């Protein structure tokens, strides 16, 4: 099993926000987690990344338990997160941000080739490469956030609302980039508020409601499901 999350219970202080959350991601698959605001999507991704520690439950990656490993160890094993709100390094240049993406030994050796690839994918970033990240536009910043995690050559890429706050043209661009990555064999775990888009490109999806997984299925099936259409697509 590539990524297996089983019975996660996560708290903020005394407040429980994830309840027995279990799901799986197979190699080369694209899986999306859907849920309304405050459902616990970000919490789930942060727990997988080791930023939050679960009270109970287990996380396996490539058949190895990673549950209580620190973030940098998890990153070393090939899991990369594009966090909610991007979290770029504001005082670093675009190039420096990208180089930080390739901080891991494995990625570092190939950093110049990867940098080239990433600039091909996002030509606009190359034009801005000497600019300090805090001066980028919202769309450019989002591209940089995605590009930065690609620099780590992840085997599992987790994206937390990558299209948030982007103009429609840019949303298209970002989804194109994600599809592109999938075709190249990257496994993707996507959290998206753009539910229709997410389900359309994902192989499978899970619905997270108030910290509990309530439904799972193939992306296309979920798109057709009455429940999803009512709750998330407003049709």
């Amino acid at each position, binding site marked *: 099993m590539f990524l297996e999350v089983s019975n996660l219970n996560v708290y903020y202080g005394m407040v429980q926000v994830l309840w027995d959350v279990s799901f799986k991601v197979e190699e080369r698959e694209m899986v999306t987690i859907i849920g309304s605001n405050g459902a616990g999507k970000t919490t789930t991704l942060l727990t997988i990344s080791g930023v939050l520690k679960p009270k109970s439950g287990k996380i396996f990656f490539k058949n190895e338990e990673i549950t209580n490993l620190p973030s940098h160890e998890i990153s070393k094993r090939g899991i990369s997160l594009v966090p909610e709100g991007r979290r770029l390094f504001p005082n670093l240049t675009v190039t420096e941000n990208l*180089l930080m993406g390739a*901080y891991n030994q494995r990625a570092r050796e190939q950093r110049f080739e990867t940098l080239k690839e990433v600039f091909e994918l996002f030509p606009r970033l190359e034009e801005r490469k000497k600019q300090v990240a805090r001066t980028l536009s919202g769309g450019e910043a989002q591209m940089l956030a995605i590009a930065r995690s690609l620099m780590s050559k992840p085997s599992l890429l987790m994206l937390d609302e990558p299209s948030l706050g982007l103009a429609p043209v840019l949303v298209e661009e970002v989804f194109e980039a994600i599809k592109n990555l999938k075709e190249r064999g990257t496994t993707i775990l996507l959290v998206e508020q753009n539910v229709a888009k997410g389900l359309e490109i994902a192989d499978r999806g899970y619905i997270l409601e108030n910290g509990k997984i309530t439904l799972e299925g193939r992306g296309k099936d979920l798109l057709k499901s009455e429940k999803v259409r009512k709750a998330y697509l407003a049709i």
Partner: protein
Amino acid sequence: MSLELFIQNLINGTLLGFVYSLVALGLALQFGVMDIINFGHGEFVMVAMYLTFWISLFLAIPGSATVVLTAPIFFVFGIIIYKLVIDKVIEAQPLSQIAVTIGLLILLRNFALAAWHAEPKGLQYQVLVGGFKVGDYVISISRLATAIVSLVVLIVLHLILTKTYFGIAIRATSDDKVAAALLGVNVKKMYTLVFGLGCAIIAIAASFIMTFQQVEPMSGMTWGLLSWVIVAMGGLGGLSGVLAAGLIVGIAQGIEITFWDPRASLAIVYLLFILLLWFKPKGLFGKR
């Protein structure tokens, strides 16, 4: 009061400003990356000055040459202090952090008082002595050497921070430690190294300060106060901000000494600081 004296004091103040910047840089680096204010900073300088004194005495080498020992010793000292003390409060609330580092200050100061007594100690072995004349003015060799070394260390550090992976990672961690960890930076290890590096910088400065100053157990107070003011003034402007603030403080003291009592030179630094808070509350280079 002569113009010559004024210019002479300006020269001395400027030279001193470089080493002020270097001392403050040790603090700025630690504060910038770890968000912790080390109130024991000045005491670290004082201990490094004593270390210079004793190594110079025992090995019968010039004070300036001890730097090859004091810097690595202080790097290790920094790592030990980090592991034993700072690491325990790095995630605690600011109040605990302040209490702990003020504890360090008191511990080191009292230790120095008990072990080395109050009378000032100066180097026995010196090579950086005398001075040379430029027109009407005397340039002290020891102060000039100290200024040059300070500037060189500042430049080297600037190159490390901007041109090496390690340096970029230091700045990234300082910007956002969670994001850095998500990309594979071992943040705790980074903190340990940066604290050690800050202490090594302190030691380099201290070994050269000893070439023109004596050390006594209370020396740390001056260095601590100067450093906090300089970091507050220029810290957010990065390396060049710290350098500019250090020079301003050095020059201000030079001017003060010309017109008033030298014993008030710290007071002037504070006046300057208060004025700055009035007009530029975010520091000279505040942009955040």
